[in-house]
């Protein structure tokens, strides 16, 4: 469904991503791993429109989206989370998530000022969507709390809910469990699995190998911006080059 060809990104003289060909498998959990600085986050940023690629093409559902801005890409059904969650701390969890569905609504300033039927309907729709997403990530019980008051892990879930509220077909998750303890990592993994079960396509960056190996259907490995391997978890675990560059001896830890 999503395919990139010869994707390259240079920052000045630095090549962060070097002619990567890759295609995402629909409805599956796709993982991207690689040493620090390998270009994983940059790769995500290129696809989701945060950075413009230097070279290469990105095709989503047979449509080229290479230089589209992030908001257009999001509208097409591509959602993402950020490593650090920026939420509006002084408003409630629900209020934060409501805006996630804004891209599916059409009301404009006119509707707002005259409170047209369309606006009221769409507001309801956004609220319903927010509630649904919060329910999905298991946060219904805190939906009326201010964001400042919820825990770090709950904030990460709010970020998921926000992404889900955009009605995506494919979700990019950049280290969603960094700094989360193993117990909670398991919970997050379950949530990711649940998203996949719902039919969403997932792309995931993580350094937590046990989790990746358990969750992912397909793994791509980046090193110095280049794709060095691709395959099932079992294949990747055995790949000499990957072990040397990335995994070391701890694959099973």
């Amino acid at each position: 469904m999503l395919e990139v060809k010869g994707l390259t990104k240079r920052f000045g003289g630095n090549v962060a991503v070097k002619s990567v060909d890759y295609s995402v498998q629909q409805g599956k959990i796709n993982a991207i791993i690689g040493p620090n600085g390998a270009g994983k986050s940059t790769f995500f940023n290129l696809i989701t429109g945060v950075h413009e690629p230097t070279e290469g093409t990105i095709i989503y559902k047979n449509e080229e989206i290479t230089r589209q801005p992030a908001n257009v890409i999001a509208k097409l059904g591509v959602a993402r989370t950020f490593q650090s969650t920026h939420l509006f701390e002084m408003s409630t969890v629900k209020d934060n998530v409501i805006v996630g569905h804004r891209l599916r609504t059409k009301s404009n300033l006119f509707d707002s000022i005259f409170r047209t039927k369309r606006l009221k309907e769409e507001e309801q729709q956004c609220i319903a969507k927010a509630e649904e997403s919060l329910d999905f990530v298991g946060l219904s019980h805190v939906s009326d709390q201010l964001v400042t008051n919820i825990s770090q892990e709950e904030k990460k879930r709010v970020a998921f809910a926000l992404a889900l509220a955009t009605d995506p077909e494919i979700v990019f998750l950049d280290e969603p469990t960094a700094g989360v303890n193993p117990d909670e990592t398991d919970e997050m993994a379950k949530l990711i699995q649940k998203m996949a079960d719902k039919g969403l396509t997932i792309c995931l960056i993580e350094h937590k190998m046990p989790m990746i190996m358990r969750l992912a259907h397909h793994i791509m490995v980046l090193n110095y911006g280049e794709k060095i391997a691709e395959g099932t978890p079992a294949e990747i675990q055995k790949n000499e080059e990957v072990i040397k560059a990335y995994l070391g001896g701890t694959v099973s830890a």
Partner: protein
Amino acid sequence: MLKLDGVSAKYGKYLSIKDIDIDVVEGEIVVLLGANGAGKSTTFKTISGLLKATSGKILFNDVPIHQTAPEKIVQMGIVQCAEDRKLFPYMNVEQNLMMGGYIHRKRKAQLKQSLNDVFELFPILYEKRNEAAGLLSGGQQQMLAIGRAYMAKPKLMLLDEPSIGLAPLIVEQMFESIKNINQEGTTILLAEQNAFAALSIAKKGYVYENGQIALQGTADELLSNQEVRKAYIGA
């Protein structure tokens, strides 16, 4: 060497940590475990003086330091490598490291040596030595933060989740490095999610829950504790 006696601290009006007692003996590696938001980082900030303890005492080599300014604490030999790294984003890697050695600024030769040591520890930093810290990847920044703390040649190093966002290979190397740093004579207080790896190199550990210490014991005791295994090791 370091003793926390009934320490509490708060952000704004609400207590984040309550009645924390910790005892670190010289030469040890001590691990703090706990869920997110349990209070590990808060403890670190309180020790390094960024946050003032609202009650309790902190003694470093029997000298009370809970009223001491952060920079004095650094001079006394306690250096923290913070969770959010707190690098100087527009300085390049080498300048960041040199700033790490600020308290030894008069001893140029020693700084040079430490710099080389860091580059040896993390070769990637050498490659990137002329690049601005803010442009490094997450993992590279983490290495730089540790390297910067190392430059101060502390007696006690506080490492707050150093393995966050690091590739497995690097994590492995990093625990190796921590062990080395420790063997060179630096005492280490370490907060970690990666409980197994941390406990494997540690002498003892404390488990946090809701801002209080729920459990403490030697590394072996904790490793064999069922609850700890379940919650933090995921086995």
